[in-house]
């Protein structure tokens, strides 16, 4: 029996350990859940997200695949229409593009095109984002590519507890989920996670702290800098409401609009490039639904519209706490 899942222990874990706990829990609870990908079985994944799962659940449920991303995504589609719940790992999001045809043309529309006869409850997990001095193609933040696709969900956790709860929810969700893991904070902090199989809701933002002066909207690893900025601003008497979007698609517009109705100001923070990023969608939403509540233009603090630089200069690209603070002050100074 699986020692981790059978006892509902509560202990401090990192984000990547929380992923592992959630996978183990769900594999224990539901025998249709299978894990597949490159190096996930024997090696436990290059970031160790799937470590020990092979030992606990055997080779039939934890599968090392050949090096072929299209195949991994295509197999996940095939497995899911057969009633399995595949959780496929793409080693880095930089290599996810080969799966896009499978995701967009098959997984996302299986339910629609068969009018509900078939559907694809699968999870495609991938580490993403910069800040860990990784080689070329390993640091991009291209979540907006998937956010544009109808029929799927794009979920991004920002802490161990949310990683645990959101991954459980994603596996249990009856539709395909792209689950993107901010690898910069894989091991950044420990947080107590109760391993009791409690999922968190999808399609909803999480308000991490309330404040009346300005709304800060972010997700993934940038939540760290956003919270840090909010804390520094609090020392100057500026109270920020911090929203973790968590499911970037479909977007919980209501939480953001209601918050801005209260604060009248909004700064959006993401590390992806600005143009056509998810921040643009949020800003457009506010223009449509909160224009009269806004007392200043919505500001975005984002990566530049450049190719993510190699790591010698990645810190120039990534938004910083200072940049967030500056944007907040400019926004508040507007009125």
């Amino acid at each position, binding site marked *: 029996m699986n020692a981790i899942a059978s006892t509902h222990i509560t202990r401090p874990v990192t984000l990547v350990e929380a992923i592992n706990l959630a996978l183990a829990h769900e594999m224990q609870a539901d025998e249709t859940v299978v894990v597949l990908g490159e190096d996930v079985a024997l090696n436990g994944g290059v970031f160790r997200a799937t470590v020990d799962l092979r030992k606990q659940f055997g080779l039939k449920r934890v599968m090392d695949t050949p090096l072929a991303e299209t195949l991994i995504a295509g197999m996940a589609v095939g497995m899911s229409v057969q009633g399995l719940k595949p959780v496929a790992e793409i080693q880095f999001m930089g290599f996810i593009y080969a799966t896009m045809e499978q995701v967009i043309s098959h997984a996302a529309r299986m339910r629609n095109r068969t009018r509900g006869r078939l559907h694809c409850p699968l999870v495609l997990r991938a580490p993403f984002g910069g800040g860990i*001095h990784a*080689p070329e193609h390993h640091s991009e933040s291209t979540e907006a590519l998937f956010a544009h696709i109808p029929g799927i969900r794009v979920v991004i956790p920002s802490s161990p507890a949310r990683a645990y709860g959101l991954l459980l929810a994603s596996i249990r969700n009856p539709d395909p989920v792209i689950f993107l893991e901010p690898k910069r904070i894989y091991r950044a902090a420990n947080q107590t996670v109760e391993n009791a199989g409690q999922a968190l809701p999808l399609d909803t933002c999480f308000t991490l702290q309330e404040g009346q002066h300005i709304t800060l909207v972010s997700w993934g690893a940038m939540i760290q800098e956003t919270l840090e900025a909010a804390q520094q601003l609090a020392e100057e008497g500026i109270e920020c409401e911090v929203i973790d979007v968590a499911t970037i698609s479909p977007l919980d517009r209501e939480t953001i609009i209601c918050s801005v109705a209260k604060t009248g100001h909004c700064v959006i923070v993401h590390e992806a490039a600005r143009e056509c990023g998810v921040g643009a969608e949020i800003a457009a939403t506010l223009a449509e639904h909160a224009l009269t509540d806004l007392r200043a233009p919505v500001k975005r603090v984002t990566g*530049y519209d450049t190719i993510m630089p190699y790591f010698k200069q990645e810190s120039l690209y990534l938004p910083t706490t200072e940049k967030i603070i500056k944007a907040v002050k400019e926004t508040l100074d507007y009125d």
Partner: protein
Amino acid sequence: MQSTIQCNYAFNIPGIRYLLPDNSAQSPLPETISDELLIRAYQHMRLIRIFDQKAIALQRTGQLGTYPSCQGHEGVNTAIGLAMHPDDVFVPYYRDQATLNLRGVKLSEILRYWGGDERGSNYKNCPQDLPNCVPIATQFCHAAGIASAQKIKGNKQATVVTGGDGSTSKGDFLEALNLAGAWHLPLVLVVINNQWAISTPRKAQCNATTLAQKAIGAGIPGVVVDGDDFTAVYDQVHKALQRAYLGKGPTLIEAITYRLGDHTTADDATRYRAREEVENAWKTESVTRLLNYLKIRELWSEEREQQWRVTCKETVDVEVKDYLNTPPDKPTAMFEHLYETLPRAYLAQYEELAVSTREDL
């Protein structure tokens, strides 16, 4: 009534080597191999081995980013580099340090790349060669395109592309191979089969006995060579290039070798690989094999060996110093090399970056 169709297809994938692991040679060596070539090859292989060890040390001391060791690949890659003509185009993957350096890429440039600096790919001496390819197998498609262009232009050059055993599982590889056959492209595809794709062994990658036999389906020649035998790889790449120059089309070469180190400095191969297997591989690896052969032939001595190692260390030290002393790139370079002319829409961001890093506009 049932009728039968006669199918008489059979295939044979030759396996080639001359220098045997026991330090003897299956004589004679191919006529493309001269004594001078052997000495030059050995010197380069030793240089790259020493460079590689230094690169790993730099990573361990925080002076380099994640680095993929090429220990075990020296023989194959030196053979490719020496067999190629400067005007040919090389399309590498990320473990081809020995070839890149022979193409004219400085060791300091290789370090710059793995040190997180785009300038490491600005190959001045081989401006037609492609930079490292990190996404697996996509480079085979680029190579097919380059070879097509060479053919269309009617020049006599060829393209050489490399990839690992893992890369042969991807559609990209098969699609490029297929096209290369159909279009008779001047392309040499070298699969460097080092037995592992991170933790996935060659056997789990594909059930075919050889990877070279994938050539059969594309209607092109496929051959297996001992990748730890410099002479076999050199001779086969040379022959494949001659075929390409003469318009006879592509060749697939599978070079069987072993990845002696971890996958990269971020990997720990002891998690999935038996120590014994690695120890055995060290007994037949290419650098020592060629050294032993040269000594037996009295083309090389212990004294020259000591001298050469000193020379290699000095060369590597100079390159490392060059790398470590490289002034940082301009922060705004990320915008300056994005488009030929920076679109107006991005000017504000460009200026913001320039101002925040106090650069002269």
